């Protein structure tokens, strides 16, 4: 499993759970899950790039 696949898997599962835990209608749940998923992935990639100089 690559690092990126791991973050995609983690983000998908957690965002779906959060959507169903916090919202009541299906539309709200899916919208919240999508936003949370994008937030997880984009922030993880951004942190990865920020730390990139330290890995060299």
């Amino acid at each position, binding site marked *: *499993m690559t*690092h990126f696949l*791991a973050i995609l*898997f*983690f983000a998908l*599962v*957690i965002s*779906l*759970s959060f959507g*169903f*835990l916090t919202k*009541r209608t*299906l539309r709200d749940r899916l919208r919240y899950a999508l936003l949370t998923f994008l937030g997880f992935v984009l922030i993880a990639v951004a942190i990865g790039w920020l730390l990139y100089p330290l890995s060299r």
Partner: protein
Amino acid sequence: MSAAATPAADQANLPLAAGVVFASWLVPGLGHLLLRRWGRAVVFFLCVAALAVAGILLRGHVFSPKTDDAFEMLGFLADFGAGGFYFLSRVYENGGPDVSVAAGDYGTRFFATAGVLNLLCTLDAFDTATGKKG
């Protein structure tokens, strides 16, 4: 405020809520299934199961309660939240944990996340059973 959310109704629902909490902890989603919340039951089971199974298959470290280390105890509490999957991880032979590679480390985190997520779902089931949440 609905009748189901009153303190008296909460008291009446406590035995039901206790059963739901135990069921929800033991098998993720079962508490919601008993409360006829089909959608949440299926999603919570799939999400917790996916994380727990991925954690086991990636050979993550599942913590044991036999430890003097506070951080390992915290890890155990998180893992134990996964209920039935915790016991499954103790009997499933997968060559033991291997955290010398990134995959094993991910496995450790995935399994702990499954446990904490299941605890959140259990709290949600409790709130639903006592009428605090629809």
